[in-house]
C-alpha cells in the first residue's frame, strides 16, 4: 500500500473517532473541563516551588518551564492518542477481536495505533505549546534556528520513544493479558518527566535516562533549546529513539505470533 492510501486510512479513523466522541456532548464538555482542571494540577507544584524559592541553582526557571511544556505536549499525545489506542489492544486480546484487525489489508500496528483519539486532551497540547512560546520569548538570548530545530527534532524523537516504550509494555499483554496495572505503573513514572532531570542524582538519574528514558523525552529537548546539550547527547537521544522504535516493532511481530485468538 502506498503512503497516500495509508494517510487516507488514518485520517478516516481519526475523523470517525472524533465524531463518536462528540456525540456525547455533555461528557465531552465535562472532559474538557476536567482536562483544564488537571492542567492546573500539573502546573501548580512549579508555581509553589518558585513561590518559596525564586532562584534555584539546581535548574533555571527557563529550563523548568521548557521541560514542563515538553511534558504537557507529550502528555497530550500520551493521553489523547497513545494510551487510548494501545489499551484497546489489551481488550482485543482478551475478547479475541484482534482477529478483525489482523484480517484488514492494512499494517496491523498502524491500525491499532491510530483507531482511537480523544480530542479533549487537546487542552494539554494547546497549554504546552503556549507555555513553550512563552518560555522561549522570555529567554535573554533567543535560541538560534539550529537550537530550535534540534529541540523540535528531539521532542519528536521523545514522542517516538514514548510510543515505543508503551508499545513494549502493551505487548506483554500477549503473554499476561492483564496489563492495565503495568501501564498505570508506567504513567506514574512518566509523572517524573515534568521536572528537569538535574533534580535526580546517582543511579536514579541513570535509570530515568536509559532504562525508563523519561529524561530523553522532556529534559533533552529543553536543553537543546537552551543550547546546553552537547552533540553527543543529541546523537544518543536520536539513536535511542530509533532503536526503541525498531525494537518495539520487532516485539510486536513476535507477540502477534503468540496471539491465540480467544474466540476460536
Amino acid at each position, binding site marked *: 500500500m502506498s503512503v497516500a492510501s495509508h494517510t487516507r486510512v488514518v485520517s478516516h479513523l481519526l475523523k470517525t473517532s472524533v465524531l463518536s466522541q462528540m456525540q456525547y456532548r455533555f*461528557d465531552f464538555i465535562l472532559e474538557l473541563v476536567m482536562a483544564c482542571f488537571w492542567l492546573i494540577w500539573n502546573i501548580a507544584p512549579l508555581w509553589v*516551588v518558585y513561590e*518559596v524559592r525564586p532562584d*534555584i*541553582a539546581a535548574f533555571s526557571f527557563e529550563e523548568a518551564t521548557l521541560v514542563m511544556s515538553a511534558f504537557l505536549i507529550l502528555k497530550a499525545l500520551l493521553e489523547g492518542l497513545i494510551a487510548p489506542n494501545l489499551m484497546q489492544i489489551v481488550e482485543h486480546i482478551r475478547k479475541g477481536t484482534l482477529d478483525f484487525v489482523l484480517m484488514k489489508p492494512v499494517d496491523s500496528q498502524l491500525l491499532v495505533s491510530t483507531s482511537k483519539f480523544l480530542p479533549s486532551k487537546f487542552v494539554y497540547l494547546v497549554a504546552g505549546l503556549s507555555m513553550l512560546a512563552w518560555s522561549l520569548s522570555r529567554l535573554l538570548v533567543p535560541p538560534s534556528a539550529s537550537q530550535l530545530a534540534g529541540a523540535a527534532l528531539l521532542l519528536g524523537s521523545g514522542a517516538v520513544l514514548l510510543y515505543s516504550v508503551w508499545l513494549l509494555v502493551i505487548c506483554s499483554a500477549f503473554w499476561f493479558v492483564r496489563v492495565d496495572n503495568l501501564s498505570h505503573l508506567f504513567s506514574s513514572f512518566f509523572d517524573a518527566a515534568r521536572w528537569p532531570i538535574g*533534580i535526580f542524582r546517582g543511579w536514579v538519574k541513570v535509570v530515568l535516562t536509559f532504562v525508563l528514558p523519561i529524561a530523553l523525552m522532556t529534559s533533552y529537548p529543553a536543553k537543546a533549546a537552551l543550547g546546553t546539550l552537547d552533540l553527543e547527547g543529541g546523537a544518543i537521544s536520536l539513536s535511542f529513539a530509533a532503536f526503541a522504535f525498531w525494537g518495539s516493532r520487532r516485539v510486536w511481530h513476535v507477540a502477534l505470533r503468540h496471539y491465540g485468538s480467544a474466540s476460536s
Partner: protein
Amino acid sequence: MIARLARQYPAMLRTGFAYMSAYRAEVLIWILSTTMPLIMYAMWASIAREAPVGRFDEAAFASYFLAILIVRQLSSAYIVWELNEAIRTGRLSMLLLRPVHPLIYYSAEHAGAIPLRALVLVPITAAALLLLPGVHFSSNPLHFGLAVLTVALAFLLNYLLQALIGLVALYTQQSLSVMDAFFGLWAVLSGYLFPLELVPGLAKVAVWLPFRAMGSLPAEILLGHLDDGAILFGVLVQLGWLLLAFAFVLALWPRAMRRYEAYGS
C-alpha cells in the same frame, strides 16, 4: 447486631486478605505506582541542598515525604471504583442479598491489603531511617500512638467520602470524573505534593478542609511538627468531617439503593 458483626468481621478480614493475596502481583504493582512522594522528594531535596526551605533541609524533606508515603499507603481507599463497577455490572445485587452491609464487606477487603502494603512499606521505611542521615520521626511515643489513630480516622474519612462519590454513580454516569476532581483537590490541599506550611496562605484554608485531615495531618504528627493544640484541632476537624460524611452516607444510601435497578442480572 454489634456482637454478630464482631463475630463476622474477622472472617471477612480473612477472605479479604485471601482475595488480595490471590491477586498479589496486581496489588503490588498498584502499591508501587505511588511514586509521586518520591518524585516530589527528589524535587524538593534538589532545592534544599543549596539552602533549607523554612524548617526543611534535605533530611527533613526526606522524613516528610517518607511519612506522607506511609500515610498515603495506609489510608488509601478505592471503594469508588468498586462501587462503580458493582453498580454497572449488577454485582451489587448479590452484595445486597447478603446479611452484611456492602460498605462493611468492602472495608474488610480494603483492610486485607494492609499486610501487602506493609511488605512494601517496612523495608522502605527501615532503609530510609537507617541509611539516610538525619531522617527521623518524632521520638515521643505519644506522637506515634496519635499518628496511628489519625491514620485510621483518615482512612475512614477517605473511605466514606469515596463511598458518597460512588453513590453519585446512580444519578449520573460521571462519578469517576467527580472522583478525579476530588483527587486533584486532595493532592494540592493535603500536603501530598509539598508541605502545606511552605504556602501559609493555602495552609490557613487547608487546615479546615477534609483533604489535609486525610493527608498530611497524621504525617505531621508522626514527625512531631505539631504542638498539642494543633494536634487536638486537627483531630477535631477530622472527627467533624467524619461525622458529616457518616450522616450523609446513612441518609443517601437507602435513597440511592431505591434508584438502583440491577442492570445485567
